[in-house]
């Protein structure tokens, strides 16, 4: 039998990565619009963020449906037109809110990890 796994207990690092991935996507789109392939490669270059590139697309699809990003077709210097992703106002707000929380969270964890809690 397949043991029922408990996602809350299993691989907390993987859970954390998964939870932050969508904000990494939003952050990559903060200053410029990007097409899917470019976005995926940029994420792939971040160490330990993505293991298989294809799994980014369901996330992009979800972000688009939630109205955090929009897509528009644009010309490509080589080959067929590309689908460009751009941050919406709602996406920018979500990113800013996360960035604030993240800073607090990171500082608190760093503080403990460096032995400051003693």
């Amino acid at each position: 039998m397949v043991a029922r796994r408990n996602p809350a207990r299993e691989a907390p690092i993987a859970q954390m990565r998964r939870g932050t991935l969508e904000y990494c996507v939003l952050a990559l789109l903060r200053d410029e619009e990007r097409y899917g392939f470019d976005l995926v490669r940029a994420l792939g270059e971040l160490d330990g963020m993505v293991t298989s590139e294809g799994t980014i697309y369901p996330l992009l699809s979800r972000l688009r449906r939630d109205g955090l990003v929009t897509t528009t077709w644009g010309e490509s210097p080589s080959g067929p037109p590309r689908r460009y992703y751009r941050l919406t106002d709602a996406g920018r707000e979500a990113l800013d809110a996360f960035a604030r929380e993240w800073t607090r969270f990171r500082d608190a964890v760093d503080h403990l990890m460096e032995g400051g809690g003693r």
Partner: protein
Amino acid sequence: MAKAPDDLIAAYLRRLADELRDLPKPRRTELVEEIREHIAEARTGLPSQDEVDVRNLLERLGDPGDIAAEARERFGIPPAKSGAREILALIFLPIGGVLLPFLGWFVGMALLWTSRVWTSRDKWIGTLLFPGGLAVPFFLAVFATSGGSCPTVSGGTRVIQTTCTGGPSGPEQALVVAGMIVLVVVPIATFVYLLVRLRRRTEVPALP
């Protein structure tokens, strides 16, 4: 066996569409399209267009099953669970035709093709290997043991001649036995395959 890169990509996208069958159609179409675009874009940057490069490209994209598991999770769609339908299909496909001559296998077929758990590829394997399931070797065996007839010609009280037909011997018999083994083993192997696929699909998807 060497494969054309275009065929590899087409097969990959077909598998992806198949694995994504639980998603609403617009989501599924969108994902397959985006991944098709990704592949096209990635190919323009490849040093060559040979099989190895394309295989590496698809490897980097990841297994269609993993992409589909991720998509289900992102859209909050629970993975299809196997239930009574799948269990009955697994019973009826191999032995349905024995329990309920001929008809039983078609019951198994109906259950197999209406299941949401198996992929189309699984369903074709379940259908073609072999139609009828174990009913075919079963009825062949029944026919063979009763079919080898030995009519006895009697004249008065004396037996004149006994002719036996239908009892092949030597290499012919070995061939028949080998054929029977194939007819028995293949449906059982198909059963095991479908069972394994069922368990694989029902597992909680791995985190990316």
